[in-house]
């Protein structure tokens, strides 16, 4: 290997982490959560302030917790518990919902990310 070879190799190996850093995690850490209830009412809550939000839906009460810049469903009256198992959300664009109880939770970041892409 010549010196130029090593130079190219080093450049390539430096380029990769830079690419990952700049093209992945583009939404960054979210600042607010948008909660939409069964009646279509929106609640915008800051992630900076810890709090517990109770939303009434057709099945009962969904409890959402905001703690340490993250948000999650603590409990839900639904059968599947998918919303609870989604766990903590903190990146802009992250989203979960309880369809049976008609409550959705989305993290709003500086930039809106896509939840699904297909072409």
């Amino acid at each position: 290997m010549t010196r130029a070879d090593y130079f190219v190799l080093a450049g390539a190996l430096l380029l990769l982490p830079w690419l990952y850093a700049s093209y992945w995690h583009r939404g960054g850490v979210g600042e607010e959560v948008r909660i939409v209830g069964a009646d279509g009412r929106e609640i915008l809550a800051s992630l900076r302030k810890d709090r517990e939000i109770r939303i009434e839906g057709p099945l009962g009460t969904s409890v959402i917790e905001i703690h340490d810049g993250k948000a999650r469903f603590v409990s839900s009256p639904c059968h599947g518990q998918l919303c609870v198992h989604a766990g903590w959300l903190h990146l802009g664009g992250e989203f979960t919902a309880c369809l049976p109880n008609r409550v959705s939770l989305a993290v709003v970041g500086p930039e809106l990310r896509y939840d699904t892409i297909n072409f």
Partner: protein
Amino acid sequence: MRNDTGAHTLSFTATREDYRIAWLAALAITIHIAESMLPSPLPGIKPGLANVVTIAALLLYGWRAAVWVSLLRVVVGSLLIGTFLTPTFVLSFSGALASLAVIGLGSLLPGRGLGPVGYCLLASMAHIAAQFYVAYRLFIPHEALFGLLPVLMTAGVGFGLASGLLVRAMMAHFKSDAGPGAPTA
């Protein structure tokens, strides 16, 4: 040209270099087609082993030979696979052009310049970058496509390095048996 019977004929004389390029291109096309049958985990990722022949041609016979081998491979390979003038071909062709441009510039470096590994890495990365740009401009003009770039570039660097080491091993082999195929430069 006029022959004895007075009819017009066209005759070509193939030079040694023409034969050489034809053989190398045939080899590259064979690898290209064999590789197109391999399954890929992600569209756009493939080993690019045919590029080994291009870089070997570059090191043994110069940039002009590499251009011929590479473009013949892309055009004839796509005709045989049936992708000629399809998006696949457009991507393949633009990747090949970018690679050739980059290794052309690389061969202008003073001193000992680049070896097989440097050429292969540069060619592979230029290939990915150009394909990505063309795919973004022409086929999928969506920001989200950029999420794929780091993955594709990682594959490009990995496979570029692998084919570079392969070419290096080939060159060592050529030098050890200084037969008729021995490098002239």
